[in-house]
């Protein structure tokens, strides 16, 4: 097989797998999120009670995972658009994937304090 044509098992395939998995996870959260927000039509107390679970340390960790999934899906989605619409997109798909990974990593570092800071204060005390 000529070099550079092997797609299976390399960056192209794994980014596709990760895009699928994160997409499905985000979509399932979206159902839950529309339902919990719908509680504002029931009563302020019921809404605040359910939103309180979003502020617990365990769910804060899940929120960090949600942010991770959304940021990867968003950045890799822009890469997919570049592959489809930019004339040189397919040629640079690997470089673009590693750019996505680096930007994602930096953003995830930046999200640690805002997303997990509250949970850390609850667990370890302020």
């Amino acid at each position: 097989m000529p070099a550079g044509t092997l797609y299976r098992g390399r960056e192209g395939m794994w980014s596709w797998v990760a895009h699928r998995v994160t997409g499905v996870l985000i979509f399932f959260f979206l159902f839950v999120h529309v339902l919990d927000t719908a509680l504002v039509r029931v009563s302020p107390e019921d809404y605040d009670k359910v939103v309180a679970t979003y502020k617990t340390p365990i769910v804060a960790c899940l929120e960090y995972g949600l942010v991770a999934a959304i940021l990867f899906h968003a950045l890799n989605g822009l890469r997919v658009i570049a592959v489809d619409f930019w004339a040189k997109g397919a040629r640079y798909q690997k470089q673009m994937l590693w750019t996505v990974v680096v930007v994602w990593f930096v953003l995830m570092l930046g999200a640690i304090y805002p997303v997990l800071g509250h949970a850390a204060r609850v667990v370890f005390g302020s």
Partner: protein
Amino acid sequence: MSTTETSASGVGPVEAAYTVDNPAPVIQAPRQRTKKTPKSTRGNFEMYGWLFMRLSGVVLVVLVIGHLLIQLVLDGGVSKVGFAFVAGRWASPWWQVWDLLMLWLAMLHGCNGLRTVINDYAERAGTRLWLKALLYTATVWTILLGTLVIFTFDPNIR
């Protein structure tokens, strides 16, 4: 074609054998639809779906990352979220339209994505049918519920 000898009238020697009374046989284009082509075609649905994923994706990047910044990062992160916070934001038509657009685009984007996943992995036709029926039902109800909540929100509910 440039090598074909043509007379002044533009009719080559081979074509000249055909006349009005002896027309050349019609050769069908490879993909031309004939009477034998199945009636039920999907048109350009999949192409429009592909285009929608990219257009809605670009808009959703802005809407969702803005939403994450507001809800999880700025002004104390998730700890400030509550009924009063929602009431404050939905007092503005800007955020009503933002959330409404995000709801519709995200639900349709996710629905089309999961439709693709079901088509890929559910091998039996019956399984695909029922999974997609469930998907479309859940999607329609969730979009309607979310839309109703945004349009009928009452800050003085109690």
